[in-house]
């Protein structure tokens, strides 16, 4: 399915039919199940989904961090022309930290408790650059300063536990960006933080993208964060991309019933919603036993609009519907226009 989304020539990262399977005692867990999307250079792409949607696993698969687990990764992850799934470990290691970097959800556990933050940042620099310790220290201090750590020269020698949650996440970001990678994968970078600190960190990510030109894959469960930060969005459900679009397009003209459901579930801080929220009924499907048809069909309120019960028997393909908007749904374009609930 190559011609589904944006042209591969434009993209820095191009994921095609990615599958991640974890063998367990109860069977094979299909965490990611045929995922395809693209990231253009310098673009902030939001990967949004609920727990178990496969969004975090996707980030780790791109970096090759699942190679040390029992997971089976297949499909294609093309970064700058190279296929990361097939690449030898040594090549991937040269890319990790240098071209592809990652920021994790909980900065306290993601930083080594026994090393100073400065040494951890400069270590990240020295792996990929043959420089003296002093030059690395200089560079790390500069980076700490850039991400907003006050008194970076002094704080270089402080340990992670001596920082607040927000400051720790700044350190993580400094560490990830110290080699100016072309793609930063941020896995729920603000979920563990308070909302006022979240706003600071998201602002920082946007600024750094502008300054360093790094593309960002922002993995999150929060559509609000996506709307504030991203250029385009991948909506994931049960290991698949159900919709990908530019951010304004997605929020103005959402096309997948799951996206409608997510938007309908959200109370808004900036406006009064009608009396009741419109949640999605039921629970996400078990990743051990996926329905043969559309993964969302059991919770979807629109499957009767599609003739012949196709939703139950036939898995819809991710189809390009113009303007870089793709959707995985059996509803016709016309049906989606008339059926879409008015959310705001």
């Amino acid at each position, binding site marked *: 399915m190559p011609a589904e989304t944006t042209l591969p020539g434009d993209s820095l990262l191009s994921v095609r039919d990615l599958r991640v399977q974890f063998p367990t005692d109860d069977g094979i867990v299909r965490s990611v199940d045929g995922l395809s999307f693209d990231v253009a250079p310098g673009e902030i792409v939001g990967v949004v989904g609920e727990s178990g949607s496969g969004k975090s696993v996707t980030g780790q698969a791109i970096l090759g961090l699942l190679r040390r687990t029992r997971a089976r990764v297949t499909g294609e992850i093309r970064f700058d022309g190279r296929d990361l799934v097939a690449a030898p470990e040594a090549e991937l290691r040269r890319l990790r930290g240098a071209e592809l970097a990652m920021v994790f959800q909980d900065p306290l556990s993601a930083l080594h408790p026994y090393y100073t933050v400065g040494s951890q940042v400069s270590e990240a620099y020295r792996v990929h650059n043959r420089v003296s310790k002093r030059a690395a220290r200089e560079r790390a201090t500069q980076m700490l300063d850039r991400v907003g750590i006050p008194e970076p020269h002094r704080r270089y020698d402080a340990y992670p536990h001596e920082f607040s949650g927000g400051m720790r996440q700044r350190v993580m970001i400094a560490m990830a960006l110290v080699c100016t990678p072309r793609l930063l994968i941020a896995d729920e970078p603000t979920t563990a933080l308070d909302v006022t600190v979240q706003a600071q960190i998201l602002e920082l990510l946007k600024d750094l993208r502008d300054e360093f030109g790094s593309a960002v894959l922002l993995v999150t469960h929060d559509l609000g964060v996506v709307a504030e930060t991203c250029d385009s969005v991948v909506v994931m459900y049960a290991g698949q991309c159900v919709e990908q679009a530019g951010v304004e397009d997605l929020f103005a003209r959402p096309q997948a019933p799951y996206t409608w459901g997510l938007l309908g579930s959200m109370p808004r801080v900036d406006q009064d919603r009608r009396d009741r929220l419109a*949640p999605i009924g039921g629970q996400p499907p078990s990743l051990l036993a996926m329905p043969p048809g559309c993964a969302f069909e059991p919770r979807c309120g629109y499957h009767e609009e599609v003739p012949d019960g196709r939703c139950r028997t036939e898995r819809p393909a991710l189809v390009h519907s113009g303007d870089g908007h793709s959707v995985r749904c059996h509803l016709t374009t016309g049906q989606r226009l008339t059926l879409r609930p008015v959310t705001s």
Partner: protein
Amino acid sequence: MTDLLSVSDLRKDFGGVRAVDGVSFTVRAGETLGLVGESGCGKSTTARLVTRLLEPTSGTVRFDGHEISRYSERRLRPLRRDLQIVFQDPIASLNPRHTAGTILAAPFKIQGVRPPGGQRAAVADLMARVGLNPEHYNRYPHEFSGGQRQRLGIARALALRPKLVVCDEPVSALDASVQAQVVNLLADLRDEYGLSYLFVAHDMAVVRHLSDRVAVMYLGRIVELADRDTLYAAPRHPYTKALLSAVPVPDPALRERRERVLLRGDPPAPGQAAVGCRFRSRCPRYRDDLDDTQRDRCATEDPQLSDDPSGAVACHFPSP
């Protein structure tokens, strides 16, 4: 409306650290009061103090005509029928070795209530009411999903038709779609049974959706308390303003148009009592808009919550 719960000058110290520092508010019969704030602001401690899961260091808690802040557990027991709590983490608050049926029958047993039609029927009715399948009577908590477990927690709190339910972050551990189901359930149950809620949460949007009035906490104090529409439309305390503007809105069209107040730094951890306004170290108004005389006042004088009927605010220089 009568005051069902009336809290006055409530304080709680944990070994020299003042977690709650002089909090006063009321919850009227039939209303929902939202209590919001960031981590470490004392909102969860307040929830535990008013339900007397913690003993206050000082201050009074008047519930339904009883001053319960010094009541013994024995004297509290009959009142617990009317005063219930729902916790954030449903799995930690449900005994893993008890079935749903046992968990939901416990309130009846403890209070010695014989529901008409028998306990079993009452439990089945309760399960149906919160959207659980009564046939799952014999299932254990781990056999339910996160959302279902929270329904179980809510059912347990509602078993004896309480007057006030304190909800401590009841939906923050849940995924968006499930969170909305539980929010709707809480709203429906309130309408049906005429419940009052003290709704404690960090999510400003959920609080807006459920509350009649909202109190904003910062470092152990209420800094602003107003009815919902006033507070969200025209916040007066600089912290409330910053908090509201920091919440991401799922509408990229508003990205540029919204006025944003970025605070510097993290919310501070509670500590010893300080001099002056405790928000001034992060206050954008203090930093940018005030002259030296005004700043001096912030630095020396602790602002008290005003007694304005339209909305109380603890700031020397609030927005109009």
